[in-house]
């Protein structure tokens, strides 16, 4: 199989995946509702994660602006997260970057909006979580 990668972990097992199963298990167990994980599920999750990395990298590269420069950049990934339905779940951890000046402008506009609202109500300003 062309996509079977060779890699070993401490026990010398798992030649089907390169990612260390022990680490994958730690991440999986950090999920509160999970009690136990069968070895096959662990292997499949590791393998799926590898496929995911390949998928995210190629998609971002193909649709990204870095293509002409033969480079993959952060913004290629952030764009993929925002524009592709498949990668929507990554939107929060891969936010698009904007210039600081633009951000300051946005903040200012937002504050002005809130000030207007305050004038209308007589309530307190609640800080957003």
């Amino acid at each position, binding site marked *: *199989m062309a*996509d*079977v*990668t060779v*890699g070993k972990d401490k026990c010398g097992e798992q*030649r*089907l*995946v*390169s*990612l*260390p199963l022990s*680490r*994958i298990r*730690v*991440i*999986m*167990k*950090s*999920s509160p*509702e*999970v*009690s*136990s*994980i*069968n070895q*096959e*599920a662990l*292997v*499949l*999750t590791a*393998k*799926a*994660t*590898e*496929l*995911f*990395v*390949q*998928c*995210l*990298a*190629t998609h*971002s*590269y193909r649709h990204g602006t870095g293509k002409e*420069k*033969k*480079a*993959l*950049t*952060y913004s*290629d*990934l*952030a764009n993929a*997260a925002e524009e592709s*339905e*498949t990668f929507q*779940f*990554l939107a929060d*951890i*891969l936010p698009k970057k904007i210039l600081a000046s633009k951000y300051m402008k946005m903040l200012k506009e937002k504050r002005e909006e809130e000030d207007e609202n305050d004038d209308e109500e007589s309530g307190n300003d609640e800080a957003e979580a």
Partner: protein
Amino acid sequence: MAERPEDLNLPNAVITRIIKEALPDGVNISKEARSAISRAASVFVLYATSCANNFAMKGKRKTLNASDVLSAMEEMEFQRFIVPLKEALEAYRREQKGKKEASEQKKKDKDKKTDSEEQDKNRDEDNDEDEERLEEEEQNEEEEVDN
């Protein structure tokens, strides 16, 4: 739980290798991009686990199994992974079966082999090393004489 932040990350070297193998030759991957993909991979594991766990709970099971993971992929709209995952599962099961048979065979072979056989082997190896050392010393002496 006492997990350090780095425990929830996947090793950089492996992630980089997977990315490089997926992209065409000569493409440069920025450090930021690499780190972003690594974080995304960890989030993927969490998302997949949570999803798979829902299927396990539906089936009133406490242990996540292979079919839960496959169902999770379907749910997350990564159907394209299902066929390669099934192939990997088959290969893994064959490997496990092969290992089991191999270890059972080893046990049988071990019983037949005697300990003295192994001792003889060790003695021979020691002799070889001594011979090599003697040869080297002789060569050095000759060179000195010439000078």
